């Protein structure tokens, strides 16, 4: 028997196996918006008067998020950070600019090389030279984004930063942290992180209820042009390997990723957050918030300033990278 839309009983375009459901185009778009609305309401992520900075990469998740938030009537501007990854970064930026222009929305662009003096390919080169001793290029990329998003939001007077982390991202990060029993990182993994002190901007992940296949489908159905090619530096990274493992389990038992993540959020996250006693301080170099050093006599220096100094002052020649171009 042909599948029918769960909501309107019409012909379907997509199955969502973990909900034992399938949807037609319009009902799927409605479902995606509803999942974001539920996430926002459950965790008090956004208020109607908030000025929201949406971190966009040109990928499916962040552009779907911006589109949904605009559709829900929130006051949003986009923030794109150019990472210096050759044609891949150029194409990503171009797609963000086109998205914003088509909707009359504001896109703020920052550039890692011009503003901070290094690129992610340079970080990759240094990581290759340092072996396992240094931070990976994906690690430097994530650290740079978190720092610059927070600073840009502070400087621009935004109330909230919204990022496009989806259910798969969150499940994979939780999986990795659980394998290492990294309880400090687990304690900080939540769909909303409040601004607990001056210098920190509230951060929200309104897509955590949607799988990445669903955000990709949303973009196809809404004709949102996104970067399909993968970052040339990401191949074989740890999160990708964890996603592959989880996807194997999901195929055999739909709902595995959902139950893993939502079970953690509902039953374990609060326990870990209560036990998290990380003390915060101001970075002695840039003034941003960072973890206080164990030795009170030591001047606090944030991870971003330490990493930046290593990259800018050290040997940071870029490695040649193979660009993956759109076909």
């Amino acid at each position: 028997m042909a599948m029918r839309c769960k909501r309107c009983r019409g012909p379907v375009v997509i199955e969502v196996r973990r909900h034992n459901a399938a949807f037609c185009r319009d009902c799927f778009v409605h479902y995606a918006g509803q999942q974001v609305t539920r996430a926002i309401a459950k965790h008090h992520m956004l208020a109607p008067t908030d000025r929201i900075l949406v971190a966009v990469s040109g990928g499916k998740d962040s552009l779907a998020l911006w589109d949904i938030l605009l559709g829900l009537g929130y006051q949003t501007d986009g923030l794109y950070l150019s990472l210096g990854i050759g044609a891949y970064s150029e194409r990503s930026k171009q797609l963000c600019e086109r998205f914003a222009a088509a909707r009359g929305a504001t896109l703020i662009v920052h550039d890692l090389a011009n503003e901070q003096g290094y690129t992610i390919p340079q970080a990759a080169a240094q990581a290759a030279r340092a072996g396992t001793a240094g931070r990976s290029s994906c690690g430097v990329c994530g650290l740079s984004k978190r720092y610059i998003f927070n600073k840009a939001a502070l400087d621009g007077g935004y109330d909230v930063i919204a990022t496009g982390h989806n259910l798969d991202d969150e499940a994979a990060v939780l999986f990795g942290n659980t394998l290492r029993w990294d309880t400090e990182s687990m304690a900080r993994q939540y769909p909303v992180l409040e601004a607990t002190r001056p210098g920190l901007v509230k951060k929200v992940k309104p897509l955590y209820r949607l799988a990445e296949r669903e955000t990709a489908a949303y973009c196809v159905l809404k004709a949102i042009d996104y970067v399909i090619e993968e970052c040339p530096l990401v191949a074989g990274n740890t999160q990708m390997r964890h996603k592959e493992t989880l996807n194997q389990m999901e195929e055999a038992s739909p709902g595995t990723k959902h139950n893993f993540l939502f079970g953690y959020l509902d039953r374990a996250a609060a326990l870990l957050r209560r036990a998290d006693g990380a003390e915060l301080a101001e970075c002695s170099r840039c003034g941003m918030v960072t973890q206080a050093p164990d030795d009170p006599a030591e001047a606090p220096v944030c991870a971003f300033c330490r990493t930046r100094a290593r990259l800018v002052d050290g040997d940071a020649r870029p490695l040649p990278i193979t660009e993956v171009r759109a076909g």
Partner: protein
Amino acid sequence: MLVTARLRPPDRTVEVADVERVADLLAKLEVLQGTVLVIRDGDLLTSQDRLRDGDSVEVRFAISGGA
């Protein structure tokens, strides 16, 4: 019965014979259904949609390494 499938990323085109439905195509390609979208002429296909001889479809991977 021959179907042309363009897999991306990266961007690779293969021809697959004797597949009746999208689920058969993905099984032959050894691709997990939950990790891709299958697109024909701009329309999404479900796993149970029938394929036609001479069809060209895109098998688009929806997994990315970070947000």
